[in-house]
């Protein structure tokens, strides 16, 4: 069933992979927090580009190359508008969000952080927003502090002011990929700035699902990945405030990021080229542009509204059907959560659960979801995670519930 906000029946038709049947059963893809499927318009844009317009960008004067450059830079402008950045060159294309976060930790971090400097993270961060900082702990002796969680999986902000006191950086996720929790980004950015710290937002799980406005947030940096928002793999985005990007040393060295290279040194190019060394993911950036158009066409407010409805339906359905046999981690209030659910079910190990659900083509991920510190705090080694996106609907929730029933049968309940 469709929600009031999106016509999912029609939407599903636009995703070729969701038409796939395995052993005669339709695919129920509930792993979009991991990576999303792609609408035909994105696939076709890439295919057409490869067939008719593929060419190098930036460096050649002929028309084909000029067209390709326009397509590439046009996608940058689309992304700029999508996240409401002030300038197009505040949008840097990376290979994924992980590279984007590493870029900040490496370039801004090594230029600005000394031994003893404090970086504040939260207990619900993805490894991509932990390990780059751990590397600076090892190399530079910076100090990490952690914002703890409340019992229902929200950030516990009661001690935030103390944690931020004297901190140089506050880097946090806008939405947890494990708990589904949406954090109060604008408030957190303000708190960071009040303490004189930089606000870095991991937008991986937020940008695909909600209206994003980096200026309203007041974010200094923000990272996200194309592949989670209906776009191709192989491209991520780093948003950075112009003044910060200007002042930072470059990250990767090579072609495109230089103004001049001599035998004895080099000077860097202007933004955004300065941070885009080498041949970029040309076709993939063009595909991301098509994904942004697709999402704008749906309206991100509608996407969010739809997911609120699906999340609410999932909470009600799974709780009423399985009661205490199911644990749904994270907040129960849909106004502070997305449609991503980590769950525990009747003591069945997540890996077994995922495998059994797969027999009815219900695809959920089992594992630590690249958030091992959070897993340890939750006291589990792994969870099964069902994550819903714009193409999922209440039928998919029902399919999940039915598949859970089937799992009980095998493991003998």
């Amino acid at each position, binding site marked *: 069933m469709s929600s009031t906000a999106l016509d999912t029946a029609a939407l599903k038709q636009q995703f070729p992979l969701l038409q796939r049947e395995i052993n005669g059963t339709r695919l129920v893809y509930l792993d979009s927090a991991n990576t999303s499927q792609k609408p035909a318009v994105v696939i076709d844009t890439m295919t057409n580009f490869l067939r008719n317009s593929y060419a190098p960008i930036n460096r050649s004067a002929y028309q084909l190359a000029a067209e390709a450059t326009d397509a590439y830079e046009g996608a940058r402008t689309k992304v700029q508008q999508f996240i409401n950045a002030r300038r197009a060159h505040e949008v840097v294309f990376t290979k994924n969000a992980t590279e984007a976060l590493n870029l900040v930790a490496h370039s801004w971090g090594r230029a600005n952080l000394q031994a003893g400097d404090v970086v504040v993270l939260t207990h619900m961060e993805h490894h991509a927003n932990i390990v780059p900082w751990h590397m600076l702990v090892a190399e530079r002796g910076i100090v990490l502090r952690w914002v703890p969680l409340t019992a229902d999986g929200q950030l516990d902000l009661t001690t935030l002011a103390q944690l931020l006191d004297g901190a140089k950086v506050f880097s946090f996720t806008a939405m947890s990929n494990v708990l589904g929790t949406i954090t109060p980004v604008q408030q957190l950015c303000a708190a960071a700035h009040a303490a004189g710290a930089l606000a870095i937002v991991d937008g991986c799980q937020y940008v695909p699902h909600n209206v994003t406005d980096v200026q309203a947030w007041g974010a200094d940096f923000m990272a996200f990945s194309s592949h989670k928002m209906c776009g191709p793999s192989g491209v991520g985005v780093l948003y950075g405030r112009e003044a910060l990007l200007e002042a930072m040393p470059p990250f990767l060295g090579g072609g495109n990021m230089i103004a001049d290279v001599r035998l004895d040194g080099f000077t860097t190019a202007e933004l955004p080229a300065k941070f885009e060394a080498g041949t970029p993911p040309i076709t993939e950036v063009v595909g991301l542009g098509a994904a942004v158009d697709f999402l704008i066409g749906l309206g991100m407010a509608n996407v969010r509204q739809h997911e609120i409805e699906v999340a609410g339906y999932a909470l009600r359905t799974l709780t009423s059907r399985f009661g205490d046999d199911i644990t749904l981690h994270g907040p129960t209030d849909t106004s502070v959560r997305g449609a991503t659910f980590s769950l525990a079910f009747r003591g069945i*190990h997540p890996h077994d659960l995922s*495998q059994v659900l797969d027999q009815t083509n219900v695809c959920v991920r089992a594992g*630590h979801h690249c958030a*091992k510190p959070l897993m340890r705090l939750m006291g589990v*080694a792994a969870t099964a995670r069902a994550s819903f996106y714009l193409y999922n609907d209440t039928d998919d929730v029902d399919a999940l519930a039915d598949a859970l029933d089937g799992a009980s049968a*095998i493991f003998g309940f």
Partner: protein
Amino acid sequence: MAGLEDLYREIILDHHRNPRNRGELPPPAPHAVGHNPLCGDEIEVYLQVEDGRVTDIKVGGQGCSISQSSASMMSQAIKGKPVADVQALVRRFKGMMSIPDADGNEIEPDPEVKLGDLEALQGVVKYPVRIKCAILGWNTLLEALEQV
């Protein structure tokens, strides 16, 4: 549910529910911990080796039905065996799991080495992601043996 019987054979589920040789051995017993970073599974193996023979083994850790039952069945199969026979069994088991040897070559099944109940795990091969679960205990065993 069609197809899964091959994976979740009754004997596997039994070892999963009632793991054998569960526990620890006090130091200085050879001891190793194995992780599967993909799913968070963890297995601990404690050995007692006397006169070239595994006289006792204990298994700890937590994980999915396949990793736990495989380790449990392994512990039964090797307890009391000479180390050389244990090595041969590991090789035979990895061969069944389609794991190549160190040089990347397929391991030919040695007809001398009997798998017994372990044959129940054969269905795992059809699920490549689970092979890592099935061999986790075995690799941990090898690590523990290196300390002997």
